[in-house]
């Protein structure tokens, strides 16, 4: 194996050194498994040769971008070869007149957006990890982010893909056009497939003009129900805010006690933003949103027009993850998603589960699209806490599904949620998913052991 891989990518782009494989045994979840080797291909041809070789020899291959996944998605549970696409990081074409960008899979999100901003354009999905996350990883997990309610997720921007299929063939699928109903939408099949169907090597993305103005408001509520009402009333008012975030009282308390940010003792805080191409448009939208926020008995409302005030209002939300990461040694960060009006039930339910098991769960997230992030805080070296954390997670998944929700809004299933797939998907659907996987990947070499597909 070594000889063949070195032949394909060169000595400098191959490793089977234990110390180099150790970091590839992890992502940001608690799953740990060793790969047998890692390669850094520099071209699609090299990826193709690697996959062909792996398929002939039935060796697992795991495509990997920045490895920021929170689900074990890139952790090689069955060993095999890590294909790290970080060196395939060229922006191949930015076509403003046709509204698309064509990039290699290893391009970092922020690098793409910096290039697009020079033309007044943007690729809107903005995962928190955008400073390091690759476009290939975004596509593989169908990454979302804060602006999902208005701008959707990665799926909404994928026009076409170049994919190395598990059977060692190179496929271009999709289009360079804004519309396309030519054949099955195979490109979208690979979006959110978490590398189980092939290695994405190039991506054609729809891009948007960059909004020029934004206005921000923050509202706190003494009752979760009021915050919940404010959210779904806003989302159905005719105005779709570009941001509609919520933080629960555990999150607020943690920020209040561990930073110098002054926050009221409230059940929930909503952060919202309207954006657009003129001030008038942005203000008119915000007027509607503010009216709704006010009607639902807020404790306090603050608005910001200039950049300085805006950043101030964002401070609490931006510091949520870091503060929680600092107060606890270990955590699990989930991404359950429910229909928008069920958010208060989800939040109340999570708090109940947290109390039942004596495990702190702080919840924040993207209320505008129903996607919440319960951050379960525990100590990974305390077996009792680990066990209770698993139970908390299990109950949160059951709760989300009972509210007509989903296990994952934007992180993916990976290893962590694989056991819960049948909770959300009926046997017919599971069977079809497995048949699709088997058809494309008969030898089960592509990121095996994930999503309960094998």
């Amino acid at each position, binding site marked *: 194996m070594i000889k063949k891989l070195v032949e394909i990518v060169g000595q400098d782009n191959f490793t089977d050194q234990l110390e180099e494989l150790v970091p590839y045994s992890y992502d940001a979840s608690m799953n740990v498994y060793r790969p047998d080797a890692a390669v850094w291909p520099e071209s699609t041809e090299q990826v193709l040769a690697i996959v062909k070789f792996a398929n002939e020899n039935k060796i697992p291959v795991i495509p990997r971008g*920045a490895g920021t996944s929170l689900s074990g998605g890139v952790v090689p549970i069955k060993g095999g070869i890590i294909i790290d696409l970080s060196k395939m990081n060229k922006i191949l074409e930015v076509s403003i007149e046709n509204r698309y960008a064509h990039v290699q899979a290893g391009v970092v999100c922020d690098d793409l957006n910096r290039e697009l901003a020079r033309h007044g354009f943007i690729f809107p999905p903005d995962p928190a990890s955008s400073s390091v996350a690759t476009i290939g990883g975004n596509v593989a997990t169908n990454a979302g982010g804060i602006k999902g309610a208005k701008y959707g997720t990665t799926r909404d921007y994928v026009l076409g893909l170049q994919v190395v299929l598990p059977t060692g063939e190179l496929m271009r699928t999709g289009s360079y056009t804004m519309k396309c109903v030519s054949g099955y939408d195979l490109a979208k099949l690979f979006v959110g497939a978490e590398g189980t169907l092939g290695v994405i090597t190039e991506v054609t993305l729809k891009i948007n003009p960059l909004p020029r103005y934004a206005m921000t408001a923050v509202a706190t509520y003494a009752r979760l129900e009021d915050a919940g009402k404010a959210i779904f009333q806003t989302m159905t008012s005719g105005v779709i805010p570009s941001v509609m975030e919520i933080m629960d009282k555990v999150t607020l308390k943690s920020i209040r006690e561990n930073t110098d940010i002054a926050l009221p003792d409230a059940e929930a805080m909503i952060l919202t933003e309207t954006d657009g191409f003129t001030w008038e448009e942005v203000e008119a939208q915000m007027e509607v949103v503010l009216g709704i926020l006010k009607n639902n008995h807020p404790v306090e409302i603050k608005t910001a027009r200039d950049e300085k005030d805006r950043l101030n209002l964002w401070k609490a939300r931006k510091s949520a993850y870091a503060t929680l*990461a600092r107060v606890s040694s270990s955590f699990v960060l989930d991404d359950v998603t429910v229909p928008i009006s069920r958010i208060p039930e989800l939040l109340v339910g999570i708090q109940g589960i947290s109390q039942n098991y004596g495990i702190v769960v702080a919840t924040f997230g993207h209320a505008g699209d129903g996607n919440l992030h319960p951050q379960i805080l525990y100590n990974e070296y305390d077996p009792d806490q680990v066990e209770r954390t698993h139970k908390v997670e299990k109950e949160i998944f059951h709760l989300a599904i009972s509210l007509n929700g989903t296990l994952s809004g934007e992180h993916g299933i990976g290893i962590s949620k694989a056991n819960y797939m049948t909770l959300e998907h009926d046997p017919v659907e599971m069977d079809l998913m497995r048949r699709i996987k088997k058809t494309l990947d008969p030898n089960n070499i592509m990121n095996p052991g994930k999503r309960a597909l094998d």
Partner: protein
Amino acid sequence: MPNQIKFDEKMRKAIVQCSRCSFCRAVCPIFDLTKRPIANASGKMILLKELMEGKLPLTESVAQAFLRCTTCMNCTTNCPSGVDPQEMVKSMRKDMVGAGFNNLFKAMGETIEKYGNIYGETERHDWGRKKEKAPYTLFLGCVGTYREEESVQETLRLLDILKVDYTMVDEVCCSGVLEDVGYSIKEDLARRNIIEIQKTGAKTLITTCPYCYRVFKEHPSYKDLGLEVKHITQFLKDFDFKVKTDKKVTYHDPCDLGRHAGIYDEPREIIRKIAPNFVEPRRTRENAMCCGAGGGFRGAFAKESVRIARNRLSQIIEDTGAEILLTECPSCLHNFRNAKRQKQKIEIYNLTEFLAKLYQEKTSPAKEAA
């Protein structure tokens, strides 16, 4: 094999605190160059985790991996979980030496001990600035003294022009760098420096090297120095300069001066006085990318170090379109000058050197025209 490293409470806490978000990938100069996860902070924190848990045996190649860090501290500044990985790297380098994994810096320590400088140079340029007594003593450090002599010459000329009453001493290496690469400061060299400096009767010690500045200021071996220590940018910030340039000027924050010592504003205050056309690079101040010279990296991995400087320099040129790149660190200066390609028109100076040049141009404008 028994685990030879003792993980103290601080280290254990940092190891579990790392959430492996990998945000450090965006700021690590070695990762930027190699794209290898072992290069950046989260990769190293994972190695430490497995060493601590006894899953990974401590081998020569694991010990080597910890040498691949410039200790630029950009990961620390950008870590959402509040971990200071470069501190862990430095501490681990010491522990690994303690466990019998000597590294290539052992030889540097011997050189410093024998020759009083990191290069093993036997002859030191006489700058002709030695006096018996003066209110200010200037300390150059090894890199300036032996690798950027012309730049130093200009810095000295500037101090003369500004009529600063200073002296210089028979300095030896501050030897602080050994602390960062697994070894310990040379106490006898520290004592020699203290005695020489104190002999001058100076009230203030001015350093041109940000690293020496930190060692004099922070290291316990220099606690009896008894002088106020200033980096030269701190010393010069309140001076009036009678020179100006219309050229487009930018500034690179040395890691040791910026993130490590918190000195961001003083050099900028000086630059604003002399260069109205001053532009910041995109990655600047707390977020400035490293030039690749720090933490022993240049000594151990010279080629990669220069490639990092090349990347940083190209980025700065692309971001700013500046004609002049200023910094105030002999190591950054040296690395950038080595990295600069001929076709790149940008001129690179230490700020003090550039000031002296402006005075020179002012007094002999014909020369400039020529």
